[in-house]
């Protein structure tokens, strides 16, 4: 495997929970994970290299907005990776047993680890789970969108409270001596 320039760290900083395979050929090639402690945090694991003992995975974070743009074919898989300033490169033995974790700057990723520039989403080339994720990514479930949604709810509640207060005031006034 290639010798990488990066920062070795003890762990990923999140608890990976596998959600499904996006590309599969006699084993996973691209999979969707979330942080088990924060399921709004999306990660893709892309197979990138191997030797006789380990598979090497390129792990990168994705916003819901970027996932949606990927499924809409506005950006490629390569663009999705390059939207990050850095990625995790992780060597794993069978299953999810991690041997090493390295943070690598996006410019230092070996070209052999990256998809081609025309790696746009095509539904019939992906596993059925991709369609499930595609539908989810349309739903507003990233942190930023959720905050906006909560603000909207608060605004509505504030308007309702204001209306209620006006009604109460009107009724109270009607009981007051003129």
């Amino acid at each position: 495997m290639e010798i990488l320039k990066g920062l070795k760290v003890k762990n990923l900083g999140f608890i990976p929970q596998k959600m499904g395979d996006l590309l599969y050929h006699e084993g996973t090639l691209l999979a969707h994970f979330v942080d088990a402690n924060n399921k709004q945090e999306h990660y893709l694991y892309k197979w990138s290299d191997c030797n006789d003992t380990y598979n090497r995975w390129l792990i990168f974070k994705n916003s819901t907005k970027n996932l949606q743009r990927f499924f809409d074919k506005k950006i490629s898989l390569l663009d999705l990776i390059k939207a990050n300033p850095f990625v995790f490169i992780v060597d794993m033995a069978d299953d999810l047993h991690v041997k090493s974790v390295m943070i690598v700057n996006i410019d230092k990723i070996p070209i052999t680890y990256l998809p081609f520039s025309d790696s746009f989403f095509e539904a019939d080339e992906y596993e059925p789970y991709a369609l499930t994720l595609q539908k989810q990514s349309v739903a507003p479930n990233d942190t930023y969108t959720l905050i906006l949604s909560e603000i909207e709810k608060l605004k509505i509640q504030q308007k309702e409270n204001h209306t209620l207060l006006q009604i109460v005031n009107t009724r109270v006034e009607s009981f007051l001596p003129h």
Partner: protein
Amino acid sequence: MEFQYTDEFKKLASQCPPAMYSTKNIVIFRWVFEDIKDARNFLPLPYRNPKRFLNLDDVTKCQSFSLSLYDTEHNAKQQFAKLRNKIGINIYKTIGTNIAKAEITEKDGVSDEPNATTGHISHHFAVGFDYEDTFTIISNL
């Protein structure tokens, strides 16, 4: 017909191979490494090291004991190129470097129907099938 890995099938809740799989007399193509005797060429996922994730449900686990084949050399090449564009040039290191061709008969196992778009076939081979004698490398990927 007795299949390879039958003991593993018995551990699964669902029927393996699936009932819809059937015997066929067909010419098939498979991605292999350049030496046909390479141990990686015909090992199903659960017996390979290192594995690319194995937390599978029973249906997927059954499929993991089958081998991936293609119905034409063109489809085998085209599907490889599509996967290479998404994963990167290193895909050769885990998938293979060449295409091998074989003629299989009804006694050699059961498979699903070729995928209408990709030509992909999943095949469960029968006990006694000789991979190295039946498959011949015909081209590079």
